[in-house]
């Protein structure tokens, strides 16, 4: 029997439809009337994202299914969708002037950002492992192409190939894990799968445990958790900086959304073992990410290792399962502003045609570019977790959730790691303000769009840091409404 239109409930899928539809429209218009500036494509992308955002914001805290049960329109899904859409909109703003400066202004860029966002939205709202996988692949394949977007640049191509080969490898693990879970429970729907697992009990079902382990390996690759992180530094460094900015935030938001939902809806009965496994990964990820970051001498690569460590911090709250879901959500919102802002400064300062920004180039910029330097300092302080920034509040709630769930030792390891990270974050600030430039950098003019994006990111970091109450309440209420 074919599902009727009312079962499909297309109205609820407006965010995905708006985002993917705007992407297709951009490709179509570009193919039919391609001449002159591609600025219109960016505006069209922003419009599509705005429609999706409006739809996400206005939807209340109901828990219903759409597309015949494939997607869930509940608080958890909508909240992660909101973070993802905001991150995508900021990425579009950041890319506009950068692409023109690098002479790679093509409309596909914005279409691919939109397709990746649509995939991420499917992951955030998925109520079916099929939807999780399709969303993951839509996100990943768009990111492979985006990584190779600077076609003349050997580093960009190489980063994309590395990302694709390891990404395909990880997807295979993930899919095999899904197949095993399907065998263990007889369904791909998350809610029904959770019920089946609860009824069957979790003792000694090799299909279930094999499936869970393989899914964690697959998600671990996407989140660049240690020991599955080896691709991240090379890909972050080689990909165009605007793509790195988007990728470092969007793929984390989407993958954590799917992981949190899996832990809360499906794997809650198996919590003791999954938590232990994730705790081990969190310790490894934080520690290795931070220690390797200490040895870097180039900002983009440093931020790559830093984002590995950040994923470790977020995982600390994910270990806590349902208790930590709100903390994960709030931290990702703050992380989106912070990390996108930091990469935006890197891309404003880096030399034309070159993605790298060695530490020596930062010297003296604190006074030559007071505003941007102040913004970068703010983002770095927030990544460290200094009070009055969102990073502090976010970390407080991440580690607090772990303590609340009885993982005190894990929270202590995380705090110690934050102390180590202060060394490399603050070193950048010191270089900017305390050191004289030997060879002053020829700076480009930052465009208006980039300025707007930086201002929004900085405002987000400060406001969420000073008055976190509203956002925290929102996060708590959102994750309380989960389809189950």
């Amino acid at each position: 029997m074919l599902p009727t239109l009312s079962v499909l409930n297309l109205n609820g899928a407006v965010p995905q439809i708006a985002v993917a539809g705007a992407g297709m429209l951009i490709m179509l218009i570009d193919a039919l009337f391609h001449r002159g500036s591609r600025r219109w494509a960016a505006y069209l992308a922003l419009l599509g994202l705005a429609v999706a955002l409006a739809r996400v914001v206005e939807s209340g805290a109901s828990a219903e299914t759409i597309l015949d049960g494939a997607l869930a329109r509940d608080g958890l899904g909508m909240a992660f969708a909101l973070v993802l859409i905001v991150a995508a909109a900021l990425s579009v703003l950041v890319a506009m002037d950068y692409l023109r400066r690098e002479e790679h202004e093509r409309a596909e860029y914005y279409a691919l950002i939109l397709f990746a966002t649509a995939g991420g939205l499917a992951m955030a709202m998925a109520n079916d492992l099929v939807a999780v996988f399709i969303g993951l692949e839509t996100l990943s394949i768009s990111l492979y192409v985006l990584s190779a977007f600077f076609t003349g640049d050997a580093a960009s191509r190489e980063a994309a190939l590395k990302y694709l080969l390891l990404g395909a490898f990880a997807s295979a693990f993930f899919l095999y894990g899904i197949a095993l879970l399907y065998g263990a429970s007889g369904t791909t729907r998350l809610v029904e799968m959770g019920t089946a697992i609860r009824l069957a009990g979790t003792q000694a079902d090799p299909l279930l445990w094999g499936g869970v382990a393989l899914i964690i390996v697959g998600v671990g690759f996407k989140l660049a958790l240690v020991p599955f992180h080896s691709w991240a530094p090379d890909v972050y460094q080689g990909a165009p900086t605007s793509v790195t900015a988007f990728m470092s935030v969007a793929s984390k938001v989407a993958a954590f959304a799917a992981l949190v939902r899996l832990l809360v809806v499906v794997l809650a009965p198996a919590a003791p073992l999954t938590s232990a496994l994730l705790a081990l990964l969190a310790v490894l990820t934080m520690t290795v990410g931070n220690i390797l970051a200490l040895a870097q001498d180039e900002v983009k690569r440093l931020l790559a290792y830093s984002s590995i460590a950040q994923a470790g911090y977020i995982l600390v709250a994910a270990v806590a399962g349902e208790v930590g879901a709100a903390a994960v959500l709030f931290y990702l919102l703050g992380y989106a502003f912070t990390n996108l802002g930091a990469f935006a400064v890197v891309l404003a300062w880096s030399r034309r045609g070159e993605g790298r920004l060695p530490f020596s180039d930062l010297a003296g910029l604190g006074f030559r570019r007071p505003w941007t330097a102040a913004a970068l300092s703010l983002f770095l302080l927030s990544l460290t977790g200094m009070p009055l920034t969102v990073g502090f509040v976010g970390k407080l709630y991440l580690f607090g959730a772990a303590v609340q769930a009885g993982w005190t030792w894990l929270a202590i390891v995380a705090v110690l790691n934050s102390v180590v990270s202060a060394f490399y974050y603050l070193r950048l600030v010191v270089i900017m303000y305390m050191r004289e430039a030997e060879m002053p950098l020829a700076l480009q003019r930052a465009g208006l769009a980039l300025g707007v994006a930086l201002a929004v990111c900085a405002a987000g970091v400060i406001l969420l840091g000073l008055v976190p109450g509203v956002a925290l309440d929102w996060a708590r209420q959102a994750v309380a409404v989960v389809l189950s």
Partner: protein
Amino acid sequence: MIPLTWYLVLSAVLFCIGLYGVLARRNAIAILMGAELMLNSANINLAAFERYVAAGSVAGQVFVIFNIAVAAAEAAVGLALILAIYRSRDTVSVEEVDLLKG
């Protein structure tokens, strides 16, 4: 009727062959083929479970169709990238594509 275990063993063997290909080969195309083999082994699992565990639903089979489309898209992007790299560097060996080592 062939028991379910046979399908699972076949799929596990295919998965391991793919895994070996990804880990042991240095040719980018061979690595991509290994990954595709791993994806297809999961498809065998899905179809077999659909028949033996969840008889009556079509979710497993529909999933397989989706996966084939996804794998094709991934292979298309992958081969395009490998071609672009081959044109500029005359090699498809992942060991010689090493600008980003660090």
